[in-house]
């Protein structure tokens, strides 16, 4: 047991921290207000090696592992949660292709994801009526000659307007097959028959582009199939296990930003003749915020470390994601309270942090799904 970081991890953390402080944080309020896609920032992240942290160097990635990835995500999310989630999804797409792709698929897509030639990669699993239960999915892929034809709709697709490549899940067996009848396809941005809908108007992560997709006789070649036919569910679950480490890190980054802002404000703002930091009511909140941030951090690090050691980490990733997302919401809520009226205005960043934090308990498996995963493991069922 040792919590010290190795040299690579320290370096990536520092790189991400500096970049977040210098570039990402100063533009976060503007991005939130205008919902502008931060194309130049995504490219800069790629140049720093942060868009394919856990993809091997021979495919253009940093090959630095899951712990390094989690640390970098925290730092970027501290600057801007919207930027961070697109970084998270792109990393997840790169990892899934690395893990399940053929040599050719890897060589075609990974270097472009890593270098920023693709602005982002997207992950198209959820549907209007099937979120955390992919067995209920309705999008289909029918064999057509030596290729496939995709039909159906996808929902809540992060980065969809700008994605160079999508991983799309579709049913390749009759509905009775449930989750075992689902396959995975690589669809390039701008493919014929793929319509990208209007971006969603959201509570938070407003600069993170979220769109519905429609597949209308969208034809893809045979080599678009990622992994085994009907083996898509396994890919989704493995990707999400890793993705949950990303979202727990995003939640942590948001919570850290809210805590740091609160500490700064509590020392300046005065009430009853003293800085509000002198009142125990405020001190208590800060102590609880720090405690929860630390606990969430350790849970995330443990999950990432297990992943780096090829050990099972489904339960641990769910614990990290559940704990960190719910902690982030509480921490940001307390931050708004510490700021009082100012906290409720756009003048101060904490109202954005609260809005941004809220989604972390929803996407990549709601808190309810995480509790189901954990309970299943606790009950040994």
């Amino acid at each position, binding site marked *: *047991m*040792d*919590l*010290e*970081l*190795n040299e690579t*991890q320290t370096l990536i953390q520092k790189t991400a921290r500096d970049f977040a402080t210098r570039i990402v944080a100063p533009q976060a309020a503007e991005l939130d207000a205008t919902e502008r896609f931060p194309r130049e920032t995504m490219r800069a992240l790629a140049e720093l090696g942060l868009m394919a942290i856990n993809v091997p160097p021979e495919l253009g990635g940093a090959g630095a592992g899951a*712990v390094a990835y989690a640390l970098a995500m925290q730092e970027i999310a501290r600057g801007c949660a919207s930027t961070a989630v697109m970084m998270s999804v792109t990393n997840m797409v790169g990892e899934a292709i690395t893990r399940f792709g053929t040599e050719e698929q890897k060589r075609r897509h990974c270097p472009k994801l890593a270098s920023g030639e693709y602005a982002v990669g997207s992950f198209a699993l959820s549907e209007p009526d099937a979120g955390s239960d992919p067995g209920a999915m309705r999008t289909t892929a029918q064999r057509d000659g030596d290729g496939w034809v995709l039909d159906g709709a996808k929902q809540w697709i992060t980065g969809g307007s700008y994605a160079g490549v999508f991983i799309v899940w579709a049913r390749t067996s009759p509905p009775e097959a449930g989750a075992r009848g689902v396959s995975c396809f690589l669809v390039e941005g701008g493919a014929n028959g793929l319509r990208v809908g209007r971006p969603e108007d959201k509570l938070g992560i407003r600069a993170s582009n979220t769109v519905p997709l429609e597949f209308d006789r969208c034809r893809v070649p045979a080599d678009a199939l990622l992994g085994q036919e009907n083996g898509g569910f396994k890919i989704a679950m493995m990707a999400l296990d890793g993705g949950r480490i990303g979202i727990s890190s995003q939640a942590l980054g948001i919570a850290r930003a809210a805590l740091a802002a609160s*500490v700064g404000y*509590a*020392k300046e703002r005065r009430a009853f003749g003293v800085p509000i*930091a002198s009142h*125990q009511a405020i*001190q*208590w909140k*800060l*102590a*609880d915020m*720090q*405690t*929860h941030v*630390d*606990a*969430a951090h*350790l*849970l995330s*690090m*443990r999950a990432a*470390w*297990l992943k780096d050691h090829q050990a099972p980490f489904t339960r*641990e990733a769910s*614990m990290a994601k*559940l*704990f960190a997302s719910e902690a982030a919401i509480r921490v940001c809520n307390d931050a708004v309270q510490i700021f009082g009226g100012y906290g409720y205005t756009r003048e101060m960043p904490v109202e954005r942090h609260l809005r941004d934090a809220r989604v972390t308990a929803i996407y990549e498996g709601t808190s*309810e799904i*995480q*509790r*189901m*995963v*954990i*309970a*299943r*493991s*606790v*009950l040994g*069922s």
Partner: protein
Amino acid sequence: MDFELQEEQRLLRETARDFAAREVAPKAAELDKTGRWPSEILAKMAELGLMGVAVPLEYGGAGMDALSYALAMEEVSTACASCGVIMSVNNSLFCDPLAKFGTEDQKKRVLTPVARGEKLGCFGLTEPMSGSDAQTMVTSAEKSRGGWVISGAKNWITNGPHADWILVFAVTDRSGPRLKHTAFLVERGTPGYTQNAPDHKLGIHAAHSCTVFFEKCEVPDENVLGAVGDGFKVAMATLDGGRIGIACQAIGIARAALERSVAYAKERKSFGVPIAQHQAIQFMLADMATQVDAARLLAWRAAKLKDKGVRHTTESSIAKLYASEMATRVTHKAIQIHGGYGYSTEFPVERHYRDARITEIYEGTSEIQRMVIAGSLLK
């Protein structure tokens, strides 16, 4: 980064787990009911080296590290929280400061038999009107020829009714703007040192505590621990370690409650299925397991920093605060899962609930931990 335990740490954990399951757990309900002092269990713990886990071999200890101690504390507390705290006081609050601040003579004369478990130690800081705020301490010590004369009372002294030695804190200088304290070692039987009858408590019934009195109790100079006037420093450094022990006690109690709840949820049926199939129950179990894990990681982090010789005051407070409040929540949910049975003494979870409650109070209340954490954030 490494979340794996070393071979030696794993072995100690297994030994403690095995011992706790075999020798301690079967007696826990009886100990709670009768409030009997578990002498025979303590004797076996001594044989296993559990009374001085992190004390060097040459002074009678097991020569292991703080993380090993944390692991053993969790295991013993999972079986019986009373045995856990008796162990914690002896290890964290007595052996640890002696190993750190003691003279060679004190380590040979006092520490060695206590670390071996042949003698028992206790810690006297709290007073009837002075708990976490040592500036209000009344107990004082006056210089005599060749020694000190201690006068005052200390209360809630865990192990007090049985301890052979007490590490007691007294004010030795009232001249400055702040009181200065000194730590003294007092042996049972020293004239003027007496113990009251054990306290009646909500939980940890077998861990006896009492008020102790010092009436012109004279001890020689060689029984001063650390420098004269440095008592507060000794106390605070000791509590930094002690809080890791209590965090692990809380984790052990919570884990026991969780394990019982999992077993019960699989057996008990409602609406035609085991209650484990209802999401209402599953979600409680998921939260309990998540929080136990979070608390353990916080405790391990603090222990690891201690082993590295890095200051860990804040990390210990974070671990103690989170683990103790977690244990109260988790044991509360365990009763809920058990329903009426959980409220009866037939099932162990009501004991776990009572035992958990103290962990938010002793060795610094949750409020004190929050003060420490906020203080470090706002520095």
